[in-house]
């Protein structure tokens, strides 16, 4: 199996506080890889380092054969790593469809000088972008609210918009930071369906999640962090039966069903 993302001895230091220590793991192509761990174990920090929001203190991150640690956020995004945020980061003054169209900004290649002088071409490009956004809006099931302001939508739908925006960047690897947090059971089910559907279209996924149901059901591979270090790795079944994990994360009373 080829690896799509590789972390090699990654360290993150926040002026003395070690958030991530010597973390190494690989995400294989065609897999849903989950990253779990108790609060403050460094999951989001890891995602932020992959996405280039935080610089790594030490170690290297590779995307395919390209070294991405040290690149800037937008460059990493252009390589094909899309992401969603733990706390929503939507464009609050805009509608659903506009939010998605910003995700597709890079798809429209025209420079501003050419735009100034060719009305027809500019219109075509905008139309193409809009069509693509409508496809995605359909895909995430928000077609009937596509012209609503994102802030007027319920939380679950806002999370969907974030996913849609990430999909608009045409990613090959999707980093989902707690996508199911704050969703009710039916919303969660919808979200899981979409994640699986997205995975089936050929997009690999790194999933950070607290909800054990979701994690155990959909991931192929799980990495467990505690206090910034990896304590276990394996398939869901292996993780369920791992003493260390049960002790650190799931509690003594966790039962294997």
């Amino acid at each position, binding site marked *: 199996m080829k690896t799509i993302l590789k972390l090699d001895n990654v360290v993150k230091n926040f002026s003395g506080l070690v958030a991530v220590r010597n973390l190494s793991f690989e995400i294989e192509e065609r897999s849903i890889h989950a990253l779990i761990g108790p609060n403050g174990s460094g999951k989001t920090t890891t995602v932020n380092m992959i996405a280039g929001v935080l610089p790594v203190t030490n170690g290297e991150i590779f995307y395919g054969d390209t070294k991405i640690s040290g690149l800037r956020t937008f460059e990493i995004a252009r390589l094909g790593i899309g992401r969603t945020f733990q*706390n929503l980061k939507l464009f609050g*003054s*805009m509608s659903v469809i506009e939010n998605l*169209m*910003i995700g597709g*900004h890079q798809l429209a290649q025209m420079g*501003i000088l050419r735009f100034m002088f060719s009305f027809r071409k*500019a219109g075509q490009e*905008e139309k193409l972008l809009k069509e693509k956004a409508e496809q995605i809006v359909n895909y995430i099931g928000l077609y009937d609210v596509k012209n609503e302001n994102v802030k007027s939508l319920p939380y679950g739908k806002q999370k969907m918009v974030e996913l849609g925006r990430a999909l608009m960047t045409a990613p090959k690897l999707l980093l989902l930071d707690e996508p199911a947090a704050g969703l009710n059971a039916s919303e969660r089910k919808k979200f899981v369906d979409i994640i699986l559907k997205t995975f089936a279209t050929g997009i690999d996924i790194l999933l950070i999640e607290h909800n054990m149901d979701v994690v155990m059901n959909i991931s192929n591979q799980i990495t467990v962090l505690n206090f910034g270090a990896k304590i276990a790795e394996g398939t869901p079944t292996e993780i369920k039966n791992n003493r260390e994990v049960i002790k650190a994360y799931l509690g003594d009373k966790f039962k294997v069903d």
Partner: protein
Amino acid sequence: MDMKKTTRIVLLGILSVGLLILPIIDKNGYRQLLFDQVFINMIVVMGLNFISGLTGQMNLGTAGIIGCGAYASTLLCMKLNLPVAVGFLAAILMGFIIGQCLGYPSLRVSGVYLSLTTIGFSEITRLVLTNWIGFTGGSAGVPNIPRLQLFGITFDSAFKNYYLYLVLAVLLAIFASRVVYSKWGRAFKAIRDNIEAVSACGIDIAKLKILAFTLAAMYGCFAGALYANMVGYINPTTFNLDLSINYLVMLMLGGIGSVAGNIIGAVTVTLLPEFLRFMQNYYWLVFSIIALLFAVFLPNGIVSLFTGKDKKAPWGVLGKFWIPKREKEGKTEP
């Protein structure tokens, strides 16, 4: 054709005919000069809209930008004896350079600090223009500025300038609104809304911020050149902080982010004080109070009365003044 479209076309027709015959009806020289000033202000505000309106970077250096444009065009023509049209092009180039330079600090500093940086730029410009006497003429200014000659016409009167500036303002408004409603306008707004998410979409924020500053500076410098051509005399004290603030007031009063709003703002703020002149010494006070009331009760600008979600029947407008309406703050936390 539906009613709405017909009314729109009729209104637009009346407006354009009105604009075309306005200086013919009103022969008063002072008022004609005022109309020219309105067009210049429109151009400045449409430029300022890119950076302060859409991208949300508070720019208080507008006066410096206009000053640079005015002096660049004037001095180039006078020192090198070039045609004024070349001076206009030089002003645009000057705007490009200023925009690129002023854009860089905006990558490192934001908020209040950026505003201070732009004030700094504006003040430095003013001081250089005042004290570099050998080159700029110092605080005495530059008199007898040669007027623009184009197609055999010398634009030396407010009446002639009116039509030139009208055409330019319309062209620049078309371009501005094309940018506002394009992927660039959207991305500018996205920077204002949530800067972290923008780079996660693969957009280079640095490039966009500099683009916004550059567009603003090019509009501003061009307007500066038009100003020099209109009054025929420039002097550094014109380009002070008050002027910058005045343009921000136009931007906010009219409606941030919309070109129509910019136009309304420029017209209102330029002409309203003149209508209040009968109050003699009190007219600035009254104007300030009116502006303040607008800011409190119409936070989205005058344009929000006509468009968007604040749209209401004309009689509903009155109700607005009793119940201030704000942008709905949605909850983002779970």
